[in-house]
């Protein structure tokens, strides 16, 4: 089962490697990890999506909490989260199918952000499964490159994972 773990950490050198190292040392697999500053520049938020059972999640939370640079850890059920991911995808195109690809992008609420005579680069920011769908839809046109940011998330409603 996939779990989304939101971690507030001190914004310091070495913290990212320290935390990702903890996952590998303890045998936990990370699906995605996204990190960036928060409204407080001294604090970063890491959003980690990991696959595992409840025992594993409990262990991860506790081990993360033990780290001095970790301020707060919270695992939130996916239905209670607004989850987003950003993706850039570069596909081959010809004069003939360019219109078709543009249509698909439009239906998916994606943007064409770069164009050459034989490629299109599309940007999409949406739920991770919508990104997967766009990849599937683009496969017939030959995908040249994909870059994804990893999932970021905040809780729905007024509750926050604050310091």
């Amino acid at each position, binding site marked *: 089962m996939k779990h989304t773990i939101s971690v507030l*950490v*001190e914004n310091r*050198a*070495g913290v990212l*490697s*320290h935390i990702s*190292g*903890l996952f590998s*040392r303890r045998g936990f697999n990370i699906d995605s990890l996204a990190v960036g500053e928060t409204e407080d520049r001294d604090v970063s938020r890491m959003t980690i999506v990991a696959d595992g059972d409840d025992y594993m999640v*409990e*262990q991860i939370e*506790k*081990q993360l*909490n*033990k*780290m*001095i*640079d*970790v*301020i707060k850890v919270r695992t939130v059920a996916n239905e209670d989260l607004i989850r987003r991911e950003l993706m850039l995808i570069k596909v081959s195109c010809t004069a003939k199918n360019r219109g078709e690809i543009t249509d698909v992008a439009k239906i998916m609420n994606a943007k064409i952000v770069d164009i050459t005579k034989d490629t299109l680069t599309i940007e999409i920011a949406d739920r991770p499964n919508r990104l997967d769908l766009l990849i599937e839809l683009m496969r017939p046109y030959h995908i040249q490159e994909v870059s994804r940011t990893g999932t970021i998330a905040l809780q729905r409603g007024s509750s926050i994972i604050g*310091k």
Partner: protein
Amino acid sequence: MNGAAAMVKCLEKEGVTVAFGYPGATICPFYDELAKSSVRHILVRQEQNAGHAAGAWGRMTGKPGVCIATSGPGATNLLTALATAYMDSAPLVAITGQVSSELLGRDAFQEADITGAAASFVKHSFLVKHSEELPRVMREAFYIAGTGRKGPVLVDVPVDVQNGVVGRFHYPEAVSIRGYNPTLRGNQLQIRRVVAAMDEARRPVICAGGGVFGSLARRQVRLLAERCRIPVACTMMGLGALPTEHPLNLGMLGSQGGALANEAIRCSDLLIILGARVGDRAVTQSGILEKDTRVVHIDIDPAEIRKNVEAGIPLVGDLAQVLDQILEEGPRPHGDVWTEGLHLPKDDAAAFGLAREGFVNPRRLVRAISARMEPEGIYTADVGQNQIWSARNCLIREGRFLTSGGMGTMGYSIPAAIGAALAAPGHQAVAVCGDGSFQMQMMELATLVREQIPVKIFVLRNGCLGLVREIQDERYGGNRMAVDLSGSPDMTALAGAYGIPAARLDRDEEVDGAVRRAFDTPGPFLTECAVWPGEDTHQLLPEKEERL
């Protein structure tokens, strides 16, 4: 002042009186200042032993021991000691020199990414970038190492940071780290649940772990056991929580433990775990815990709860405080001590018979050494057969039993005895090791001589790596490979070369005299004790006595 002077001043502010180390180029500014301070520096002969000595010092005092090494190989040599301290929750601050900041990451001479390498073996680490940060970092390092679940903290200081200017030295009194707030007081609701469970239980057993010493809770454990008449089984790290001969002491539990402790846990209806991580060797793999036994797990580290054992009643807090809270609730005294009906041995006394001609019985020897020590004496055991014989048969009274319980690090006993002896001056310190482990630490004989530390060393010499030999005999069809230690030196002659008086012991009848002689001789002393190579560590139940 410069950064180095500030660091030394921090040590003085922390009340550090002894530091163990080995200098090198990148830590020279620090040593230059250390020379001017009141801190006594013990020069070891290999950095790992500085770490073990400091860790043992920490385990004795409850406050962080200090070790120092230079960058690169000096720092990497510390790693095993850091891992040892981490596993046994020994409070320790390790200070390492580092190459100059502008060279970091360029693979400079004697550069090692030690904060990276040590990441999984330390509670926390700092790579100091600015001299001005040093007082705060040092304060935080001592605070983190010595509070909560204690452990090693690494402070890595580039040489230019040691030489840089600290304008105004300010040592912060209070520490505020938002990501670090250990829970000390137990939740009152959980406390009441624990007391209710204790009152309801008919066959309760306390399992005392290393946390009893980490939290300086020995008095409270004894009080609780005596007041409620609950018997106490100890993990290897918890040995000495109650005196060995205390009527409520069941001895050591686990796969290397005694029959009484294990049977008591198997039959219990309530297991009260005090400051123990319930390691694989102690409980989980030994299969002694029945499924329907209720478990109370008290630990300062929330991550230990439900890691290895399902706890019906978890309770996070500092053991001494939590036990005070429990005692305040007035748990009811039980009637007869229920384990008195279990007629099982808690040690190997049944196998204290005479050894073969030319050898001594190691179980009996261990008992004789510990019995002859003063009650407050410190016994350090190494790793291997000597550890198991020691753990099961050492007679502990008010003193301490120190060994590398979690990591099982060979070469621990002598440096640990050095650290412990300096932490408890005036008390006797004994190091018991095998001929394998002795040769991993024998360079420290020089430290004993130079510093005139009166450690009494007993080397149990059986000419082989006995515990590995046992595994090979049991599980690999007796295919003995790489366990023969022939080529080892005459250890009494070796001690003599260092100027340490020594004796050889190979007759059971001479054990008492040999032990007395070691204690009566001032300063360090080495006794080489011949042990039959075929001697095993198996638990000796009465019906199996004929095996000897």
